[in-house]
């Protein structure tokens, strides 16, 4: 089994506030991994470091054997464009472009022609069941439709890894279920690895494996807190 992404002792702080305190993990190709933990435990920061969006203060992140934390911003940007796909909770579609244009954007950046980009975009929108809003702007769609368009945009370049940060956070249960179900289905079809950050146990249920973070470090027990040892007061 190949490890497609590996992190070793990743440390990252925002100013004086530590966010990650030495996280080590391995991600197998093709698996769906959930990273959970209470708010403020550093899940999103870990995701950003793994995806090359942020550079860790120390430690290594390796993608298919090569370190990505030492790459330049331009190189990481290209990596994110071609090999990774990113999905956030909200605010990721360009409000002035239609859904089709939004989805086509990464292809245009890669140098594809307008027509091919549009065809590919429409195909992906179809796959997620939002082909009917292809020519509407994000403001004219529901949250669930927006997230599905955002997923289409993340997947249009057929990346090997998808990073999702609370993708269903702003959606109600059914819409969220739809989004996750489709994500998982497509991931399985394309053999794409998915790293999913969430605080919701139900969302974590869609994953094959779970890693719990607590205060910036991996918590093996998964309980999120530590019971202090010693005699109890009762």
């Amino acid at each position, binding site marked *: 089994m190949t490890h497609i992404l590996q992190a070793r002792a990743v440390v990252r702080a925002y100013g004086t506030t530590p966010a990650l305190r030495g996280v080590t993990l391995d991600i197998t190709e093709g698996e769906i991994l959930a990273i959970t933990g209470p708010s403020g435990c550093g899940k999103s920061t870990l995701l950003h470091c793994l995806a090359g969006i942020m550079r860790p203060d120390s430690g290594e992140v390796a993608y298919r054997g090569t370190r990505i934390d030492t790459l330049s911003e331009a190189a990481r940007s290209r990596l994110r464009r071609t090999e990774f796909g990113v999905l956030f909770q909200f605010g990721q579609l360009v409000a002035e472009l239609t859904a089709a244009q939004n989805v086509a954007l990464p292809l245009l950046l890669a140098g594809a022609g307008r027509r091919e980009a549009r065809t590919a975009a429409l195909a992906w929108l179809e796959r997620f069941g939002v082909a009917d809003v292809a020519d509407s702007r994000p403001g004219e769609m529901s949250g669930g439709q927006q997230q599905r368009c955002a997923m289409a945009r993340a997947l249009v370049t057929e990346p090997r890894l998808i990073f999702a940060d609370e993708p269903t956070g702003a959606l109600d249960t059914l819409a969220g279920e739809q989004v996750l179900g489709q994500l998982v289905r497509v991931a399985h079809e394309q053999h794409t690895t998915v790293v999913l950050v969430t605080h919701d146990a139900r969302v974590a249920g*869609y994953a094959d494996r779970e890693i719990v973070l607590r205060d910036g470090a991996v918590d093996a027990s998964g309980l999120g*807190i530590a*019971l202090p040892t*010693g005699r109890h*007061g009762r």
Partner: protein
Amino acid sequence: MLLGLLGGGPKHGYDLKHAYDRTLPRAKPLGFGQVYATLGRLERDGLVTQAGHDRAGGPDRTTFAITDAGRGELERWVATVEPPAPHVGGTLLAKVMVALMWPDAERAMAYLTAQRKAHTDRLRELTAAKTDPAATIGDVIAADYAISHLDADLVWLRTTLARVADLRSGVHE
């Protein structure tokens, strides 16, 4: 449960009932008859012994104490993870509370970790069953029901642990 309470030290039957009610205020209050019947059973099984009679003030106040065998049984009970099912209810609650009262924090942690893992594994199974393309609407609904309850359990567990941790650190620091 009674064993667990006895684990804290020998008690009278009367005290046991009150301790039980105090610990589980929202559960059905235990009747005295039930207490003595359970105690009788436990004694017969060799898990408790009578530690002494105290005739002071009132009817027969037998003190019961836990035996070693009883202690072993108790440990075994706590170590067994409660199978996650929709109607776990009171048993889970009891186990968690006992674990929290347990002097050996490591063992308590081990139990809690294992219990949580069992819950999340089951949740994963149910989610997979739900997203299976062959699932009928009935399957999905049933799975949803179980998932919701498991989720509730997990949230409760997490909150309880955080609460207790807060309490403890307040007491000790």
